């Protein structure tokens, strides 16, 4: 914090307003490759960034490692000659409620225990499928964020995180099957039972192969499938920047019913021990629970300070700086509300259909328009309500606004994916499916 104050006072000599942001983290990852412990990595990172308003324009510079206060100020001044107009204020009184993001137990987990957890996880998967090769990453770490600005704002918070990731590969002849899942939290949640059972379920479903027809089919996106295929175009449409420039299909749809009446979506920075949670965003604006879709109605978009000022509205506390860079609107934790249809009932309901867990290349289509398309990396064919086996050489394509307009069902069983998305399975009525003949 002393260093930040020094940079701030250096910057104030040359600028009307200034803001100094600092992030640091230290994490250790235990990596298993092909069932064996292969590497242990410890990564320490610190970065400082300076944003100034000088002669009414924004300047920005970032540094990691020590490059001196003066160099940072000079780079920010240089860029301010060309920067955008300074049309907002840095927040002055930073008042927010406490959000739990730190669990002291995480740091205390010994390396040996991480190794043991990895061995047990792999053991469970191998007990089901002996010839599978698993890559497992187990990470524990802590981070902290500090922020000071010339409007006398000054605050910091600490975070801990713990994650388990597994990817299994099974090769038979030239047939390659990928399975995998992950779990993460700010808490030391190293129980492997749930993760192991999810992966063995995938192995069960993919045991046999099956072929689907080339035509529009009903598709159940599991929570992993939602994350893989639908999440990116959906989040993009709620980004204040896309709304401001008019490229979001939702730009003029505030208050209108665009989605299924039973669908509600919100961003929530205040969830206790959520990996994406924070008391304030990376610009010092309090984090909140922000409804984006309420009973199918579009209710809010995501804003940072600058985008909000340009749009004539307020920051929603979604200013984020991936890697310490320039702030931009982003989600904290995105939550899709659970519905009332059990997953088993969705499967039972399909005469011919697909369960999609993972799509490769889904983000290559026209995301701006809400399109998704890609190769089904992991998905299962359903026939007369029964899972027949894994599909291969199969593509799906659709538009997220079309498929979510009317859903035959929203799942009961919501779960976290990757620590920043919580969603139930979504049962969609007609998604274009193309399968390779023969």
């Amino acid at each position, binding site marked *: 914090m002393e260093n930040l104050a020094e940079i701030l006072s250096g910057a104030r000599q040359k600028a009307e307003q200034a803001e100094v942001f600092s992030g640091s983290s230290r994490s250790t990852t*235990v990596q298993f*490759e*092909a069932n064996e*412990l*292969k*590497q*242990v*990595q*410890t*990564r*320490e*990172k*610190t*970065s400082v960034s300076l944003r100034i308003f000088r002669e009414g324009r924004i300047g*920005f*510079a*970032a*540094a*990691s*490692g*020590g*490059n*001196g206060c003066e*160099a940072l100020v000079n*780079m920010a001044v240089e860029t301010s000659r*060309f*920067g*955008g107009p300074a049309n907002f204020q840095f927040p002055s009184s930073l008042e927010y409620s406490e959000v739990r993001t730190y669990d002291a137990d995480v740091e205390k987990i010994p*390396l040996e225990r991480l*190794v043991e957890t990895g061995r047990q996880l792999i053991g469970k998967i191998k007990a089901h499928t002996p010839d599978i090769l698993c890559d497992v990453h187990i990470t524990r770490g802590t981070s902290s964020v500090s922020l000071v600005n010339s409007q006398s704002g000054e605050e910091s918070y600490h975070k801990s995180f713990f994650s388990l990731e597994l990817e299994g590969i099974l090769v038979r*002849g*030239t*047939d*390659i099957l*990928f399975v995998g899942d992950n779990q993460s939290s700010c808490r030391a949640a190293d129980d492997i039972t749930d993760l192991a059972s999810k992966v063995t379920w995938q192995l069960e479903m993919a045991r046999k192969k099956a072929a689907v027809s*080339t035509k529009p089919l009903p598709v159940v996106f599991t929570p992993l499938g939602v994350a893989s295929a639908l999440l990116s175009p959906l989040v993009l449409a709620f980004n204040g*920047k896309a709304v401001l*420039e*008019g*490229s979001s299909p939702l730009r003029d749809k505030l208050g209108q019913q665009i989605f299924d009446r039973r669908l509600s979506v919100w961003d929530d920075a205040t969830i206790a021990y959520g990996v994406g949670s924070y008391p304030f965003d990376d610009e010092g604006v309090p984090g909140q629970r922000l409804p984006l879709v309420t009973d199918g109605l579009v209710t809010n978009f995501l804003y940072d300070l600058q985008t909000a000022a*340009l749009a004539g509205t307020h920051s929603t506390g979604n200013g984020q700086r991936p890697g310490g*860079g320039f702030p931009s609107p982003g989600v904290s934790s995105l939550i899709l509300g659970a519905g009332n249809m059990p997953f088993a009932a969705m499967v039972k309901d399909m005469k011919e259909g697909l369960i999609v867990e993972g799509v*490769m*290349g889904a*983000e*290559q289509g*026209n995301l*701006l*328009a809400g399109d998704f*398309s*890609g*190769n089904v990396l992991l998905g299962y064919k359903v026939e007369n309500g029964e899972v027949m086996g894994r599909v*291969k*050489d199969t*593509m799906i*394509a659709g*538009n997220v606004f079309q498929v979510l307009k009317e859903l035959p069902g929203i799942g009961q069983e919501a779960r976290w994916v990757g620590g920043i998305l919580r969603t139930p399975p979504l049962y969609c009525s007609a998604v*274009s499916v*193309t399968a*390779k003949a023969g």
Partner: protein
Amino acid sequence: MVTTFFTFATVKAYNEGMRDAIADALKGRGADYIEVHFEEGEATNIAYRGKRLEEISRGRSSGGNVRALVRGSWGFVSFNNLDGLRGKVDLALQEAKLAGREPFKLSPVKSVVDTVAPQLEKSATTVPLATKKELLDRYDDVMLSIPRIQSTRINYRDSMRRTIFANSEGSYIEQTRTDLAMRLTAVAREGNEVQQASLSMGSNGEFSAVEGLDGQARELAERAAALLSAPQVKGAEYTVILDPVLAGVFAHEAFGHLSESDFVYQNENLKQIMVLGKRFGGKHLDIVDDPTVPNLRGSYKYDDEGTAPEGIYLIREGILEGRLHSRETATRMGEKATGNARAINYAFPPIVRMSNTFIESGNTSLEDMLADIEEGVYVKDWYGGTTSLEMFTFSAGEARMIRNGRLAELLRPVVLTGNVFTTLQNIDAIGNDLDMNQGGGCGKGGQYPLPVSDGSPHIRIRHCVVGGR
């Protein structure tokens, strides 16, 4: 707390003692190998969204890492703060000793002491910020002047890294590496329809590579506008012709990643699929990975393990001939290190990566390839691509129907997918017009974007699944 941050000047002062320090750090520790990377870098980012300059920023970064090998298992520590290098070596050793596998030796490479700097005519790092902005302003104006273009995106980044590599075998290499990447995107809109078209360019830091692209900026904006009224392709199997850019992406995504030995070496089944000497395509098919081609984005003299690459054939005359190695994977597979261990920066350990990957020229002209296609799809330009070893997916920036041997109507962007083994066999014609694409950046194991280039002549593929709605 007194913190001495690491700067390049202090590293210079360190240089004299560094090799001694590493030799010292090794003594009596039971480590088989230790290497140290230090790095100081700077970068400029400029981003536009429509008329609005969204970001103009500069950054500096310095840091390093220590990597230690003990009985076949690695410990790795990265940092921004140079204080207590010995303690970091200790931690890396402690990490490496957790596994305790079999005794293991890295594939031998010659120890080198060298200094390498790029030869540039107009280095982007030295070009004034005002000049960069002026150029991008112009491209933005050109794109926005086209009817129905509602917005644009421009992302520009140039960077320079000065790196020091030293290892316990006596190598000591200083390299300066520069890179430049730019992407122009035009977004067209009419009613509820939104379409976009992009151009990705890059170079080894040479600024002139991104100058004078006004014509191409105009062309891509016109294409985005034209896509608004273009039809979707009907999803089906087609004969497709790939332009050099997209065929290069195909070489990289569909085959190149399979040649990265870290995917293969621990997997007996995959090893059997990727047996050297096995036929993967017709006699006309040659695929190369070569970091020694001068002045491309994937070019370098030493990789991040200090190995000097020579460039290899992955496929020669349709037969699998070689694969990409780090020193570790080379030992594990009983082959030679190829100099393909690369890291995007000091925060990551080197892993097996491609460099400049391309399909060599054949002898068929584009006209001849088109001539006997009754109905097919011509796909052009890179939009993205990804792979899961056996299956690949890549998307084209532009597509046209081929009807009766001629290019016909413009189509909405398409996604191609397939199985790499059958698709390579299905390449039935290779053009005579090799061209390299410098606009990509490769991601693997959380390390993105790594500067690479890829290339190809036009190629024709039979029975390719083209996705649409």
